[in-house]
C-alpha cells in the first residue's frame, strides 16, 4: 500500500516546476497535488535549497562519483569502457511500513525460487506432475544437466536473489523480472548510498534512513557458512573481467567484502580442489562468489567454448570441495516464461498465496495463451522466453499493423521462445534536471541474501529511472539513470555501521601473498610501459625545440642522437626509409611520434591499468584518464603544432610523475608494488643502455653536443653539472649514465634495486642457493660495479669502443632474459589453456 496523502503538509515550491503527468502513480505527489507523508522532509529541504542550492550540493556528489571511479561499461561503445555512473541527487523515499510488505514478498519469492531450483536439479517432481511445462526446463539452455544431483551446502542454490519491481497506477507493487543468475546492482546501491548521505547528510540523519551495512554483514556470514569445516575460509569473487558491463561493481564488492577478485584464469583445479594461483604458490579456495554466467564456469563439463571458466570446477563442486554462490545452474530461473506459473507453484510448494503479483505474463508455448497474445498484441510487451534467445523487448503499442503481423508470424514459427507481458504504466518520480524537477518512470531493484533458513533483504535497493518520460525501458545500457533508495524507519538507526568503517581504508585481503599471478604480471608490464613511455617523452622533449632553431651543428647532433635511439627501438615511422647513420630527426618523424606512437602507448598503459582496477587508486586512475584524453585530442593546424607538442609533452611528464607517485603511494610495499617497481627498473635500465649504445655509438666520443644530448635525454645533465663543473668528458658521461651508484637514473642504480627485489621474491622452485634470476640480476650488477669508465671510453682495435660494446650487448641480452625468467616463474598462468580436439 502507498502512504496516505496529506493536505496539512508542505507544498513543493513552484520554482521546481514539477508537474507529474496524469495516469501514473507519482511517488512524491498525490493526484490532488499534495505531498505524500514520507516525502515531506524531502520537500521541505528542496524548498529550502531551491534549484541553485541543490545544484551546488550536487557538485559534491559528482565529485565523489568521479573520484571513486564509479563506472558502468556500455557494450559496443569503444570510447566508453567506463561511463560515469548516472546518479540523481534526489533519493527515492519509501516509508518503513510500506517497505515491510515488499520485504516479506521478496523473501517469500526467494524461498519459492530456491525450492523450485532444488526440485529441478533434484527429483523434478514439478515436471513429472506437469505443474510446469517440460519445455521450460528441458528446452532451456540454462538447465545445466552436469549439475543435476549436486546437493549444495544447506540446500541453498540461490544465495543471492534480486527482483525488479514496479508500481502500477493503483499504487500496488508488481514483480517485473527475477534475477537469479548472478544478480548485479547491490554494489551500485551501496555506492549510491555513500554519495547520497554525503550530499544530504542533514536529511539522511533526521529522517532515520535505514542502513545497508547489516545486509552486507549477513552476506558475508552466509558465504562463510558455506565452508563450515574451515576456520578461515578463502573466499574469492569470480569476475568475467574488465570488459563486463558491471566490472566496476565486481571490483568494488570484492574490496568492500574483503575478498580477492579473480578471473577464471587465476584459478586451477588440482586433485579435485580449487586453488588460487598466487606468487606464493597455490592457495586453496573454499567459496567462489560467482559474478559470471554459470554455463561459462567450466569448459570441461559446461560450455566448451568458454574462455572464462575453470576446467574441472563441476567435478570439484560434485565432490563438495568448493561451494559456488549462486550455485551452478541457477540461471535456469532467469526466464520470463516461468513467472506465469509462479502463483500456482507458490500455493503448491509453500501453501501460501504469492504476496507480490507478477506482472501478467503469457508464455506463447501454451496454445490458449498464444491466442490471447495474438488478439491483444497491441497492449503487450513481447520478450524472449529465456535469455538465450537474443532479442530486445518489443512493445506492441509501438508497432504498425504490418509489423504486428510480422511479429505474430515470428511467434508462430517458434512459439515457445516468446513470452508476452502486460505493459505496465510505471510510477513516476522527480529527478533534478536543468534546475527543475522532471518526471521519470522508475523500477526498483531489490536484493536478498540467504541467511540460515530465511532471507535478509537489503532495506532499500537500486532505483533505476528511464531516460525520458516516453521511454518504457529502464536500462543502463540505454541511457537510464539511478537513485539511492531511502527506507525511512520510525526510530533512529542503531549507531553501528560497517559503512562508517569502510570510509577509512577498505579492509585489505589477508596477506600480500594472495596476489594472483595475473595481477603481478599486469603490474610488471604496467611498470615497463610507463617507463618506456617516459623515455620516449624525454627524447621528444629534448629534440623538439632543436627542430625549429637556426641551423647549428650542436642542434643537428642532438637530433642525430635522438634519431638513433628512437630508431634502435623501432619507434620511427613515416620518415626516410633509410636515413644515413648520422641523419637528424625530421619534423614529420617527431610529430608522427608524438601524435601516433605516444598516443598508442598511453592507450596501452590505460589498458593494462584497467585490468588492475581493484589495485589502482581512484586518483591514479583519474590522472591516467586525463593523460589519455590529452593525447586523443586531434593535433591543431600546422602552424601551432610545435607549441602544441611541447605543451603536450610537458603535461605528459607531469601527469606520468603524478601517476607513478599515486600508484605506488597507495600500494602497500608488498609483492604487488615490488612487481610494478621491477618492471620500471628493468625498463629504465634497458632504455639507458640503448641510449648509450645507440645514442652515443661505439666510436670514440668527442662531440660535446652529442654528450650533452645523451645527458639531457638520460635526465642527468644537472647531476653532471653539479658534480663535475667542467666541460663534457666522455668517460665521465659514461660513468654517470652507467656506473654511478649515486645517480638515480644510472643503470647500476636500477640494477641494485632490481637485484634487491629479486632476492625478496617468494622462491617458487626448490633449487638450493641463489635461484637463477637472482644470480642473473647480481651478475649484471657486479659487472657494472667492476667496470671502469676510462676503459669503456678508450678506443680499442679499429678505433672501436669494444669494452663498451661487450658490456652493453650483454646488459641488453641479460635484461631481456631476466624479464623472461620472471615471466616463466611467476606468471605461468599466461600459458593459454586450450580444448583438446574433440573426438
Amino acid at each position: 500500500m502507498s502512504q496516505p496523502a496529506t493536505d496539512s503538509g508542505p507544498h513543493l515550491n513552484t520554482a521546481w516546476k514539477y508537474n507529474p503527468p496524469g495516469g501514473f502513480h507519482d511517488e512524491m505527489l498525490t493526484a490532488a497535488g499534495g505531498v505524500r507523508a514520507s516525502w515531506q522532509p524531502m520537500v521541505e529541504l528542496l524548498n529550502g535549497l531551491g534549484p541553485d542550492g541543490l545544484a551546488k550540493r550536487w557538485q559534491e556528489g559528482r565529485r565523489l562519483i568521479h573520484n571513486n571511479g564509479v563506472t558502468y561499461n556500455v557494450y559496443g561503445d569503444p570510447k566508453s569502457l567506463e561511463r560515469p555512473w548516472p546518479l540523481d541527487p534526489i533519493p527515492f523515499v519509501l516509508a518503513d511500513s510500506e517497505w515491510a510488505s515488499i520485504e516479506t514478498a521478496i523473501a517469500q519469492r526467494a524461498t519459492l525460487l530456491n525450492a523450485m531450483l532444488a526440485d529441478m536439479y533434484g527429483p523434478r517432481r514439478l515436471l513429472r506432475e506437469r505443474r510446469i511445462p517440460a519445455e521450460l526446463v528441458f528446452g532451456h539452455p540454462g538447465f545445466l544437466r552436469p549439475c543435476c544431483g549436486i546437493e549444495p551446502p544447506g540446500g541453498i542454490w540461490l544465495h543471492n536473489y534480486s527482483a525488479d519491481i514496479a508500481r502500477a497506477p493503483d499504487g500496488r507493487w508488481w514483480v517485473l523480472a527475477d534475477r537469479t543468475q548472478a544478480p548485479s546492482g547491490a554494489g551500485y546501491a551501496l555506492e549510491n548510498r555513500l554519495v547520497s548521505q554525503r550530499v544530504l547528510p542533514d536529511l539522511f540523519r533526521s529522517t532515520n534512513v535505514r542502513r545497508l551495512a547489516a545486509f552486507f554483514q549477513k552476506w558475508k556470514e552466509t558465504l562463510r557458512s558455506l565452508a563450515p569445516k574451515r576456520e578461515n575460509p578463502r573466499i574469492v569473487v569470480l569476475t568475467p573481467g574488465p570488459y563486463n558491463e558491471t566490472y566496476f561493481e565486481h571490483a568494488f564488492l570484492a574490496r568492500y567484502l574483503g575478498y580477492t577478485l579473480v578471473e577464471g584464469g587465476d584459478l586451477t583445479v588440482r586433485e579435485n580442489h580449487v586453488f588460487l594461483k598466487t606468487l606464493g604458490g597455490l592457495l586453496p579456495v573454499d567459496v567462489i562468489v560467482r559474478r559470471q554466467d554459470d554455463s561459462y564456469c567450466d569448459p570441461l563439463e559446461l560450455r566448451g567454448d568458454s574462455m572464462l571458466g575453470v576446467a574441472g570446477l563441476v567435478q570439484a563442486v560434485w565432490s563438495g570441495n568448493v561451494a559456488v554462490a549462486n550455485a551452478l545452474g541457477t540461471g535456469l530461473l532467469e526466464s520470463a516464461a516461468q513467472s506465469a506459473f509462479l502463483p500456482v507453484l507458490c500455493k503448491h510448494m509453500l501453501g501460501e498465496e504469492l504476496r507480490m503479483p507478477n506482472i501478467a505474463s503469457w508464455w506463447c508455448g501454451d496454445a490458449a495463451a498464444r491466442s490471447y497474445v495474438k488478439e491483444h498484441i497491441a497492449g503487450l510487451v513481447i520478450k524472449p522466453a529465456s535469455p538465450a534467445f537474443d532479442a530486445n523487448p518489443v512493445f506492441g503499442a509501438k508497432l504498425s499493423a504490418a509489423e504486428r503481423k510480422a511479429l505474430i508470424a515470428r511467434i508462430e514459427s517458434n512459439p515457445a521462445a516468446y513470452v508476452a507481458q502486460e505493459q505496465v504504466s510505471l510510477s513516476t518520480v522527480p529527478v533534478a534536471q536543468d534546475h527543475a524537477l522532471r518526471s521519470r518512470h522508475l523500477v526498483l531493484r531489490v536484493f536478498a541474501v540467504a541467511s540460515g533458513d530465511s532471507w535478509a533483504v537489503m532495506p532499500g535497493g537500486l532505483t533505476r529511472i528511464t531516460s525520458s518520460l516516453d521511454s518504457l525501458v529502464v536500462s543502463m545500457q540505454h541511457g537510464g539513470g539511478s537513485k539511492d533508495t531511502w527506507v525511512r524507519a520510525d526510530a533512529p538507526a542503531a549507531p553501528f555501521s560497517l559503512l562508517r568503517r569502510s570510509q577509512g581504508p577498505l579492509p585489505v585481503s589477508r596477506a600480500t601473498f594472495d596476489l594472483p599471478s595475473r595481477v603481478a604480471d599486469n603490474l610488471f608490464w604496467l611498470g615497463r610501459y610507463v617507463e618506456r613511455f617516459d623515455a620516449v617523452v624525454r627524447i621528444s622533449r629534448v629534440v623538439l625545440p632543436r627542430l625549429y632553431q637556426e641551423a647549428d651543428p650542436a642542434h643537428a647532433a642532438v637530433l642525430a642522437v635522438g634519431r638513433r635511439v628512437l630508431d634502435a627501438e623501432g619507434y620511427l615511422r613515416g620518415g626516410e626509409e633509410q636515413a644515413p647513420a648520422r641523419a637528424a630527426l625530421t619534423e614529420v618523424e617527431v610529430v608522427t611520434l608524438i601524435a601516433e606512437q605516444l598516443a598508442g602507448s598511453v592507450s596501452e598503459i590505460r589498458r593494462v591499468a584497467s585490468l588492475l582496477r581493484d589495485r589502482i587508486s581512484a586518483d591514479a586512475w583519474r590522472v591516467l584518464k586525463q593523460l589519455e584524453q590529452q593525447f586523443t585530442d586531434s593535433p591543431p593546424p600546422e602552424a601551432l603544432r610545435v607549441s602544441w607538442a611541447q605543451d603536450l609533452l610537458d603535461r605528459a611528464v607531469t601527469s606520468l610523475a603524478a601517476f607513478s607517485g599515486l600508484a605506488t603511494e597507495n600500494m602497500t610495499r608488498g609483492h604487488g608494488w615490488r612487481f610494478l617497481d621491477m618492471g620500471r627498473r628493468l625498463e629504465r635500465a634497458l632504455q639507458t643502455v640503448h641510449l648509450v649504445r645507440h645514442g652515443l655509438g661505439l666510436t670514440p666520443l668527442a662531440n660535446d653536443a652529442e654528450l650533452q644530448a645523451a645527458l639531457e635525454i638520460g635526465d642527468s645533465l644537472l647531476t653532471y653539472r653539479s658534480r663535475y663543473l667542467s666541460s663534457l668528458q666522455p668517460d665521465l658521461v659514461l660513468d654517470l649514465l652507467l656506473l654511478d651508484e649515486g645517480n638515480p637514473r644510472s643503470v647500476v642504480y636500477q640494477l641494485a634495486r632490481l637485484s634487491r627485489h629479486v632476492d625478496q621474491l617468494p622462491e617458487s622452485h626448490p633449487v638450493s642457493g641463489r635461484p637463477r634470476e637472482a644470480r642473473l640480476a647480481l651478475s649484471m650488477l657486479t659487472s657494472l660495479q667492476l667496470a671502469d669508465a676510462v676503459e669503456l671510453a678508450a678506443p680499442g682495435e679499429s678505433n672501436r669502443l669494444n669494452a663498451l660494446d661487450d658490456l652493453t650487448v650483454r646488459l641488453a641480452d641479460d635484461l631481456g632474459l631476466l624479464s623472461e625468467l620472471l615471466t616463466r616463474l611467476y606468471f605461468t598462468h599466461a600459458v593459454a589453456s586450450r580444448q583438446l580436439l574433440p573426438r
Partner: protein
Amino acid sequence: MVLTVSHTTTYLYREPVSICHTAVHLNPRGSLHQRVISHRLEVSPEPVFSVTRNDYFGNEITVFSIHEPHQTLTISSKSVVELQPEEPPPAGLTPAWEAVRDEVGQQAGEESYQASEFVFRSPFVKLGPDFAAYAAPSFPPGRSVLAASLDLCHRIFSEFRYDPRATTISTPVDEVLKDRGGVCQDFAHLMIACLRSLGLPARYVSGYLRSGENTVGAEASHAWCSVFCPGFGWLDFDPTNDVMPQSDHVTIAIGRDYSDVSPVKGVAIGGGEQIVNVAVEVLPPRPAR
C-alpha cells in the same frame, strides 16, 4: 554375439602440456540388448586423479586429470560386450507418428515424460521448418512411426554423400542439410533434427560399428540415432548405413546430441599445436585354441 572393442585416442603436442583435465564417455552402456562383460580404461601418463560417475543420462563418465608435463597423451579403452539383439517390431504394430507426437506432447505417463526431454533443440540440433519440410515426404498422415522413420533413414542414406572432408565437428546441422554431405555424426544430428522438428523424441547414440564389407564408419567411433516408440521403447536407426542396428552396433552412451556424449573432451594447459589419432577395432573374439 560377443564383440571386443579396442579404442585408442592419442594426442601429440608440439609443446609440453603441464596440466590436462579430461572427461571421457568410453564405458559401454549396459541395457537389455547389451551386456558389458568387461571394460578397462588405460591412460598414459598416469592420472593423479580419476573418478567415474553416472552422468545425467545414465551413461558412465570418467573425469581424470594429469599433472605431470607430457607431450603425448594416450587414452586406451578396451571393452568386451555381448549383444542380445531383438528383432524390431513389425512396423504395422507401432503407432502412427502423430500419436507418438501427441502422447509425448501431453507427457501422458512416466515413459513419455522421460521421452519429452528429447523433443527440444539442443546445442548441436537446431529445429525448424526446413527440417520438417525435408522429413515431410516420409511422414504422410497416419503412417506408423517405424515405417516413417525407416523411410527417412533410407532417404538420408541415399540422398546424402558420405564425405569426411565436407564437415567438421562444429558444422551446424542446417549446413549439412543444405550441402547434402557429411559423416555419421552429421547424419545422426540431421535425422534427429528432422524427427524433433515434427515433435518426435529422438536421441543421439554414440558407439562403435563392427567392420564389414558394406559398412561405413567402422574405423572410428560411430554415431546413430533412436526414436521413441510408446510400447516398444527406443528404436535405433543408422542413417549412415541405412540399417536398424542389431548385432553390429555397440552402444557407449546416449544423449541429446554429440555435446552430451563426446567420447573424449578435455582442456590442456600449454601444448601448442596438437595432432590427434584415433584407432578403433571391433572384432569377434578369437576362437579359443
